[in-house]
């Protein structure tokens, strides 16, 4: 006969005990700090300074919102998000179409392509610094072999943006590929066979069979990639020697820890938070719909 020690523990008590530690940890690490920083965003607090803290009302917010620099950082962030995600979808979905067939070693090939996605972004950024080095980098080496001019990749804003995009696409196209492959391999074969009987064109098959059936999964990938690219910080920060493209995360970091203008950083962070919550909400609503279908 099993022990009855826990008999007295009703399901109601048990489920509370099971969830409480998780929620307590998240309250301690996420919610409490967020409340603290909300309070700071209305003051003139600076990290590490012993000066008295004063309430300044909405001054930080009006400063951030009227500051041309912040606006520029948001524009850079938007540019990186749109370009990186678009490229990742083209490359990732393209590779998935290529790999979606019977071939020897498919499993190994897929896993090998997925490796970059699993690596440490900071270390990846550090090594790509060498690849994009103006003098001894292999990127310029290949350009010279092909008869092009050398490019100062990491010291000029335009080329640095291209470099950051190349690294992000290298890391994250495999993510889109992985999800697309799952969608593609779930499409029943007979749909294509039926289309074959009707002598449908390749484009027709792609447009009316492949795309609609993969779309729900592609949207999951799109939302994950959008939110993650918006958060992008360490890889680009390290790759470009803390220079351009400076995204909004980098601006918050600089304000908080370099300029010691913590209150302004908190105000910017809250504006970012509102954007992230808005995007996450779209995400969450969509996921709710997907989950209900299961």
């Amino acid at each position, binding site marked *: 006969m*099993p022990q009855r020690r*826990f008999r007295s*523990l009703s399901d109601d008590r*048990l*489920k509370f005990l*099971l*969830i409480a530690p998780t929620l307590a*940890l*998240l309250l301690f*690490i*996420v919610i409490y*700090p*967020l409340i*603290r*920083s909300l309070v*700071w965003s209305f003051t003139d607090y600076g990290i590490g300074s012993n000066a008295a803290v004063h309430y300044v009302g909405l001054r930080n917010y009006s400063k951030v919102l009227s500051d041309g620099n912040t606006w520029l950082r948001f524009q850079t962030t938007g540019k990186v998000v749109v370009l990186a995600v678009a490229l990742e979808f083209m490359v990732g979905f393209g*590779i998935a179409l290529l790999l979606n*067939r019977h*071939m020897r070693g498919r*499993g190994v090939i897929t*896993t090998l*392509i997925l*490796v*970059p996605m*699993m*690596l*440490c*972004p*900071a*270390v990846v950024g*550090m*090594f*790509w*610094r*060498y690849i994009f*080095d103006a*003098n*001894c980098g292999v990127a310029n*080496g290949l350009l010279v072999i092909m008869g092009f001019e050398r490019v100062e990749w990491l010291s000029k804003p335009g080329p640095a943006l291209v470099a950051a995009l190349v690294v992000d696409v*290298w890391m994250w196209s*495999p993510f889109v590929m992985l*999800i697309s492959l*799952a969608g593609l391999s779930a499409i029943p074969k007979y749909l294509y066979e039926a289309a074959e009987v009707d002598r449908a064109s390749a484009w027709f098959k792609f447009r009316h069979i492949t795309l609609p059936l993969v779309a729900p999964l592609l949207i*999951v990938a799109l939302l*994950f990639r959008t*939110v993650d690219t918006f958060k992008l*910080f360490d890889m680009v920060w*390290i790759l470009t020697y803390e220079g351009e493209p400076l995204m909004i*995360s*980098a601006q918050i970091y600089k304000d908080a820890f370099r300029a010691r203008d*913590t209150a302004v*950083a*908190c105000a910017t*962070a809250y504006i*970012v*938070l509102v954007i*992230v*919550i808005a995007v996450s909400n779209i995400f*969450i609503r969509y996921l709710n719909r*997907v989950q209900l279908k299961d």
Partner: protein
Amino acid sequence: MLKAWSIRIAVLVVLAVFLFPLYWMVLTSLKSRIDVGTSPPQFVFKPTAANYAKVVRKVTRTYDGRVEVGPSDFPGALCNSLVIGALSTLAAVVLGTLSAYAFSRFRIPGKGDLLFFILSTRMLPPVVIVVPVYAMYTAVGLRQTHLGLVILYAAFNMSFAVWIMKSFIDEIPREFEEAALCDGYSRWQAFCKVVVPQIYPGAAATAIFCMITAWNEYVFAMVLAADTPLVAPYRIVNTQVTTSGTAFEEIAALSIVFLLPVVIATFLLRKHLLRGVTFGIVK
């Protein structure tokens, strides 16, 4: 026939493009200082193991030209990464599995909202969180401690652990536990004796994912720890710049040692990667 060949070649080209940076990292790690700084870059060169020796040995040249050899701080950094990663993973997987079980099996008021609150903690940019956490950790003395990073990474991995473990537990039929309950087991005993044995493989995969996330983390480590405790990514990125420029050959060798376990783990996880990267939403 021609089509099959062109596809083979296209696949090989894709593979070559994606693996080239890693291949280049391996070559760089085997080069001497001079070969690394040459332009155009060398594909053929005389390989050296000196950079790998620097993983464990620190060679410094004093001002009067003497060469001093001492132990390197990199093995210690790897150790710190391992310990912090393992403890935070243990916490995240255990607490996450318990919560996932509750979310999977019980009627909980506001369950959907709670689950999505948990997921939303992963959407926040780390920089937004790190500023107030820095101040809070300074106040309670958790900054520059192993424990501070362990707590942080456990919280950071919690959303992942809850969501993916819930997807694994959802797949186990409730009837097994109900049968156990009828046999006189308590709910807790049913969980331990019926559910736990079945979720081992899933929990193991989850643990590897959490471990990789903690192992790879840089922003929190940079702000909250810097060099105490020194973790491996911070050590690699902050490898000292020598008089002859950044020692990319040394960075490459350290990176290979640091990245290799993750590459191996990727192959171990290959069946779970899809579920892993989508938090269990896509199986």
